[in-house]
């Protein structure tokens, strides 16, 4: 089988690479583009540590083919911060100590960002259900949920400041 030429956009940068037809987006990001922030915890769609946004949709990149990224936009954890400005979720994770080992953190940051892109006023239950696809074995989720709620508040205040 021949390799596939993928033209795509990753974290806002036009990007191209060659890949095998059966290669996952996760492997292409990690091994061809050096974007190792996206982690592999299972390879079967069950842990969420490989979460990325594809056209703004939260997906486990281990279940997406690299070729599916053709002509689409991919956002990985490396693209969540803008310059030295951390996303409110990233800042809240630091302040709330919402990570211990940190292996789940990239996936959770991407998943939480995608929730807050849609809803900056989620209930605790909405946060818990949105993040249910992201396993964390260290924290018991308490501080993660608090961090996402805090980030939501910061984002709400930012928008009201802009409006004011």
């Amino acid at each position, binding site marked *: 089988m021949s390799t596939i030429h993928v033209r795509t956009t990753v974290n806002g940068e036009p990007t191209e690479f060659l890949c095998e037809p059966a290669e996952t987006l996760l492997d292409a990001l990690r091994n061809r583009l050096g974007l190792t922030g996206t982690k592999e915890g299972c390879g079967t769609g069950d842990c969420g540590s490989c979460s990325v946004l594809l056209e703004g949709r939260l997906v486990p990149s281990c279940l997406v083919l690299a070729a599916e990224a053709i002509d689409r936009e991919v956002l990985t954890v490396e693209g969540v911060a803008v310059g030295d400005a951390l996303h409110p979720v990233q800042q809240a994770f630091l302040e709330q100590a919402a990570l211990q*080992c940190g*292996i789940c953190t990239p996936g959770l940051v991407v998943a939480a960002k995608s929730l807050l892109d849609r809803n900056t006023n989620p209930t605790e239950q909405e946060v818990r259900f949105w993040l249910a696809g992201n396993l964390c074995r260290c924290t018991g989720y308490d501080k993660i949920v608090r961090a996402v709620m805090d980030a939501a508040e910061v984002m709400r205040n930012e928008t009201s400041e802009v409006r004011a």
Partner: protein
Amino acid sequence: MSAERTFEYIGTRPIRHDGLDKVTGRANYGADFTLPGMLHGHVLRSPHAHARIVSIDTSAAEATPGVKAVITGKDIPKTNAKLSLGEAAMELGPMGDNALAHDKALYEGHAVAAVAATSPEIAREAAEKIVVVYEVLKPVMTVDQALAPGATILHDDLVTKGKPLADAPKHTNVALRMELKRGDLEAGFAAADLIVERTFTTPMVHQGYIEPHACVARYGEDGQVLVWTTTQGHFIVRDASAGILGIDAAKVKVVPSEIGGGFGGKIPVYLEPLAIVLSRKAHRPVKMVMSRDDVFRASGPTSGTKVRMKIGAKKDGTLVAASASLYYEAGAYPGSPAGAGAMCVIAPYTIPNFMIEAYDIVVNRPKVAAYRAPGSPAAMFATESVIDEIAQKLGMDPIDLRLKNAAQEGDSAPYGPKYGPIGLKQVLEATKAHPHWKAPLGPNQGRGVACGFWFNAGLNSTATVSLSADGSATVVTGNPDIGGTRVAQAMMVSEELGIPVERVRPTVADTDSIGYNDLTGGSRVCYATGMAVIKAAQDARDQLCARAAKIWDVDPSCVAWERGRAIPLNGASDKEPLTVSALAAKMTATGGPIVGRGAVSAPMAGPGFATNICDIEVDKETGVSRVVRYTAIQDVGKAVHPSYVEGQMQGGAVQGIGWALNEEYIYDEAGHLENAGFLDYRMPVASDLPMIDTVLIEVANPLHPYGVRGVGEVPIVPPLAAVANAMAGATGVRFTDLPLSPPRVLKALSGA
């Protein structure tokens, strides 16, 4: 002393230094390393739970284009070497045989060969071409099967260590039997008004770290070896790999990556010796990464257990006698935490008469590894369930019953030594006073409480603290940071030298760049490595004082250190205090670089006690249960960074909830694991849980300058019984077998 000391930095909550890299995806974990020319390794694993390896033909794999090396058990020397780890010793022979089987495959997933090739796909396809002829043997899957008369024997040369029973058979699967006793058991039970006796079981469960094992090894033609790996102890990886392969440890350098969880499971070596040997054969670096399936089948679980527990009490709640028999699955090689379980099982209570026996039993399951307070959760599940039942039958408040019998300073622990200052009573009082304990319950809800105990380890640690000319500092240690220990170490340097936390850079160094450190485990890093850090900082402080004396041209006895400054004492009182920055700026002129060193062999760390209160709600039509409120209370000695202490308590509680409600290894009769993935091995997710409230009790540990106690392990001990006791409250059924999964609960409810 320590109790009265007021702290400036200890007890605050600064942002961790390694945090930014972790929230932005820059931090490098085990699978994130690559080297030019690197090959990819793949392990061929046994499909059988128990089989003699008759022959292995690797020729087809070797002939595959892209394959650069193939190895089998023949390439890993058999050894009798041991590695000392504190009081204990790690047997390297079984560790090597577990990494790559020599004669027998002892569990499904046991490695039998490995391939290195130019791509992971080629390596995998080539491994499938290896022809292994097995003589399949009957698998031994449970402790009952292992102990049955005429049972299949896993290891022909196994003899029972410790105190075997007089009539024990010569060929056996029992690797160890130990006993602890005190007083007169018969008289004790004769004096009891109430005796409760039950048998409990807990399933084999996995630590469940999200990052699979991964490493890269490079073997140089000069015999120098470099290993990058995710581990809880890179010095153990160095010494174990060197010991197994018969190489000089000084030829091996191990660089630890960031580690994506371990909980005890990243202490043994699995991939590293194979990667080193493949690299030696192929003359190229080799990367090896486990799949999640490999992680479940061939790394770390903790023992499934059976515990018979009998406790006698007086009408007033005084516990007078206890007997317990603990049977722990070791997996394929000796080494379950049965002995630790025996030492923990009644540790919170002063029971004058007891007899405890523990058995370490080999079965055809993966070799168990440590898992957070190894041995204690299953043992205390039995004790704390029986205590709850005693309280219920005596009509006593379960916390009052525990308070009445709680161990305190000066009592002899069942395992020997006298307790120093311990916080069990304070923890129980705080539990009783907590609003959660008195809050009303809703329909179909029940509340349970339970205690937990863990020893906490000390062991060996080294640290250095170096000053820069601008007055900032670096602190270097050798313990992989799993949950925020680096920031805690920086805070200790700040406390001693008065340098702000963000001007102290904490680093975990490789095996060449710092003195020896025992593993990250046993809840010991903040305690023991912390002691080394404090010592190193104090050494640097003394040097700073000496420099001030030199600058002032006074005797060193005329200088003291206070809040980040050298201050003059009598005889030098005309001098202006000198700050760290001022002294550091003159460092080269006053005698050269300032490097403080600390090396400690820390004593056992002062036991930790905890309680948990659990509210559970049960749907009686489906058997599905939900934890609706949860509170963890723990004596933490002194919380250096309270957020990360709370995090340990919350994470441990949730792992324990998973163990109680859902998690288990499910095997078919032939010994095949049926749920080797996160879909079927169901760990708790965010939507399963409420917030986990925490209460930190601080009873200073006199062994540590700040009063620190280990905090990482005891949190997983109380949940098993707290959940089961809550379930008993909600349903009226006392459950003795975990997990309390919906089918099991439903069955018990329809039978009740």
